């Protein structure tokens, strides 16, 4: 789970020529142009490639130590064996069905919990009365360790989908709520005053000034929520489930299939990364004005 909201962009995107929307000057000699192009390409390769060096090295070391017998395969199977197990499960269709089930649960929980958190965050950020009414209660509930609710949840919902949805939604609710509220409360008062002085009020003021100002913080909440979402889902699926990636792992443990267990963990990592990436794309699309995301105006 990555909490850093912004990764530095490659230098290329910050070059003044692009930022100001003007074409590069034509005065340079062909040689310098080529050199520039090469350095731009270099910057690109560097930005795209460097993050993969460390995972690659780890993978190679892992494979080597497993192949030479340094690590026993019942302790940690070699990467190739895990790939094989993955391929086997893909062919049997088990991987895909369980993957879809897990993704569905995560998504449903995110929509319900995130939606509610967003709605409460908005209403408490905009209305003093609403905040007085609900905020202290929400903060109280927030301090209950989520996983301590599991016995109760199983008593209430059994081990049906309801239990998982409840847990995931609850885990997503708080980060989205807290950050939406924070975002709205910290919108620049001076901009709001400016908007009012130009006759904006109600929905217009919200849409043009308050919401765009709160959006970066809402995204921080969303990315944080994605992290807690996967953690909760894994726990819910390993404790009580009959499908899903967590179930796949628990089932494999009973049959000592270490390769499938490791595979499940890797799939979780991949899903988490994928969700984070999706939010990042969303951020880039909606926060283009933000200096941290700036690539010039489209």
């Amino acid at each position, binding site marked *: 789970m990555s909490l850093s909201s912004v990764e530095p962009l490659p230098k290329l995107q910050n070059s003044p020529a692009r*930022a*100001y*929307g003007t074409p590069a000057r034509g005065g340079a000699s062909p040689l310098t142009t080529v050199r520039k192009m090469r350095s731009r390409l270099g910057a690109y390769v560097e930005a795209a490639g460097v993050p993969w060096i460390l995972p690659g090295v780890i993978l190679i070391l892992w494979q080597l130590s497993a192949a030479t017998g340094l690590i026993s395969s019942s302790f940690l199977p070699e990467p190739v064996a895990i790939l094989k197990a993955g391929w086997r499960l893909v062919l049997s269709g088990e991987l895909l069905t369980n993957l879809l089930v897990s993704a569905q649960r995560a998504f449903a929980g995110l929509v319900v919990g995130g939606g509610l958190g967003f709605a409460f965050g908005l209403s408490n950020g905009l209305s003093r009365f609403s905040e007085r009414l609900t905020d202290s209660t929400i903060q109280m509930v927030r301090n209950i360790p989520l996983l301590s609710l599991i016995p109760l949840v199983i008593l209430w919902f059994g081990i049906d989908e309801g239990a998982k949805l409840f847990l995931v939604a609850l885990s997503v609710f708080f980060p989205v709520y807290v950050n939406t509220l924070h975002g709205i409360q910290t919108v620049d008062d*001076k*901009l709001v*005053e*400016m*908007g009012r*002085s*130009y*006759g*904006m009020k109600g929905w217009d003021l919200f849409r*043009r*000034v308050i919401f*765009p*100002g709160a*959006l970066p913080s809402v995204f921080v909440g969303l990315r944080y929520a994605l992290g807690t979402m996967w953690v909760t889902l894994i726990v819910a699926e390993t404790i009580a489930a009959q499908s899903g990636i967590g179930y796949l792992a628990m089932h494999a443990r009973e049959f000592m299939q270490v390769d499938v267990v490791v595979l499940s963990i890797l799939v979780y990592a991949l899903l988490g990364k994928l969700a984070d990436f999706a939010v990042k794309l969303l951020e880039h699309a909606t*926060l*283009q*004005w*933000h*200096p941290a995301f*700036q690539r010039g*105006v489209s």
Partner: protein
Amino acid sequence: MIESPCLVPAASLVHNSPVSPKSHAVPDFDGLFRTPPAFGAKVRAAGLSKSYGQQKVLEDLDLEVQPGEFLAVVGRSGCGKSTLLRLLAGLETPDIGEISFDFATSQSTHVARIMFQEPRLLPWASVQKNVEVGLGSRRIFQDAERRAAEALNSVGLGSRAHEWPSVLSGGQKQRVALARALVSEPRFLALDEPLGALDALTRIEMQSLLERVWLQQKFTAVLVTHDVNEALTLADRVVLIEDGRVKLDLKVDLPRPRQRSAVDFTTLEDQILRELLKRDDTAPDYTI
């Protein structure tokens, strides 16, 4: 100043004119003020008092600004000049006293505009969209885009319409803020030290830009500043506020554009500065 419609190029009167306003590279003043300029509002403040908690900021202050007049308000920091301006612009309400505007015509509803010390541009809206904010509820009309583009041209930023505010310099941002205030053709423009944060050169440029647009639009302007030189460069009248009251009311009867080195100019500047600093000689409230 009377501006007759015949000053306007005929082509630009046609709605779907082939001449795009964006094609002007140089500031286009005629384009912005094609409608005969509205006369400024007469602003009258009577018996204004305002306090924050125990702190009395304004005390029984009377002030009258003639239509189309450029008034500068100077004073030490904390003398209440900014509060006075916020009251005039309707951002706050006075504890006692009242403010009235007399408009030559009654068609306009919201005509008091304020330009803040900071540009206060919406960072998530393009320069053009920021200017359209100034149109208020009229920004949904079809000509909103054209009018905003014209206002941007008039401050010399027509070519930057589609950029984010964050790539502009401080002076350019303040020019966008000026375009935003002007696009609604205000009858009364309150200026809250809008040039205070700019460097000396940009400041002089902005002063002459302000003077030009004021001469064109003839709105009533009240400028709050701590810079006596700036006040004398721009204003018809300078008012000095001390302890929440008007202490000095001085007519500046000098030809425009003002010559900063002229003897009359420096004499006035000296007079106001001496008035401002007077309290220091008699009763210093701090020691070094």
